[in-house]
């Protein structure tokens, strides 16, 4: 085990994954710090806050659940909210499946547990199809390791130092900026850019839905628009033509 672990850490793709994740780690760290502070400020004890950060390991679900816990909402409301916030991971897991299926179920589940947003986005940007000769899993574990550390260390600091960390100057916005930069780096062609605009608009328009279901609505809307453009039907062709008119580019790739 220890020798295979050493081989993993020495694999060049492990370092590549860690390095590419480090670009957004400042944002992850700021977000982790804010989440740590928020748990304690909501009235959770320090041991329970530590348990939550190490076990739940899902920033957006935690940030959605924490105010509800602080307000004493019923458990099922908190779970329903977290479930809806996490529904995007169900979509992601269908995407991960071909990459992970060669591993036994236990290892697969461990890999799945680590599939947070940023690991998903960076990985799918880099690898288009499953192959076992380019160190995909090593890359994934390198980026997961980096994001785990960049999240957990500041989160623990936030829990321990909750009373002295200032939050009124907008620290949490660094996490939003990290996601924004990552989103920009994914704008590969007109079709994906258009789908992203649709998703953003749908998320704002559907914001009033309970349990943050607006995220699910937005993903569904963007995927539909994307399929419409790719499908080559009449409406899709018209959208594509009007997108291309401003600046001709190569076909839809991604």
């Amino acid at each position: 085990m220890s020798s295979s672990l050493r081989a993993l850490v020495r694999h060049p793709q492990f370092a590549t994954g860690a390095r590419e994740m480090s670009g957004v780690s400042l944002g992850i760290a700021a977000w982790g710090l804010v989440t740590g502070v928020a748990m304690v400020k909501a009235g959770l004890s320090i041991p329970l806050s530590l348990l939550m950060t190490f076990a739940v390991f899902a920033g957006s679900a935690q940030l959605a659940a924490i105010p509800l816990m602080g307000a004493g909402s019923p458990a099922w409301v908190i779970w329903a909210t977290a479930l809806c916030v996490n529904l995007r991971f169900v979509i992601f897991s269908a995407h991960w499946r071909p990459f992970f299926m060669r591993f036994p179920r236990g290892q697969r589940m461990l890999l799945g547990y680590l599939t947070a947003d940023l690991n998903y986005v960076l990985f799918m940007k880099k690898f288009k199809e499953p192959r076992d000769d380019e160190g995909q899993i090593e890359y994934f574990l390198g980026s997961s390791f980096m994001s785990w550390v960049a999240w957990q260390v500041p989160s623990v600091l936030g829990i321990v130092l909750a009373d002295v960390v200032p939050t009124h100057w907008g620290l949490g916005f660094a996490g939003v900026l990290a996601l924004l930069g990552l989103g920009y780096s994914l704008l590969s062609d007109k079709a994906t850019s258009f789908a992203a605009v649709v998703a953003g608009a749908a998320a704002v328009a559907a914001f009033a839905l309970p349990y943050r279901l607006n995220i699910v609505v937005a993903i569904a809307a963007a995927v539909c628009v994307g399929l419409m453009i790719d499908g080559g039907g009449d409406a899709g062709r018209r959208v594509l033509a009007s997108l291309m008119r401003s600046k001709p580019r190569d076909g839809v790739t991604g």
Partner: protein
Amino acid sequence: MSNLEALIVIIGLTAITVVTRCFFLISERELRVPGWVQRGLRYAPLAALAAVVVPELLMSQGQLISTWQDARLYAVPAATAYFFWRRGILGTIVVGMAVLVPLKLLLGW
């Protein structure tokens, strides 16, 4: 919320993380993913990011920003300009925060 209740909630949240992230990884059985689903999934990562980020950029308390005295209105264009100039995410964060923090601290935006 008592410690016991909080513990139960946290255990449930952990189960939700595991089940949602592993949903399509659990079964060994052949999963036939139709071609249109595979094509549609190409749009999912960016859509999820946009869905999480855009409300954070444009809304507060469930409403679109209705004042020009909001630090985000200046931080986001600055961060965006940096990104398309240099293509670096770290710099995007730094530039955005360099605009946001003074506006918040000095002017209370």
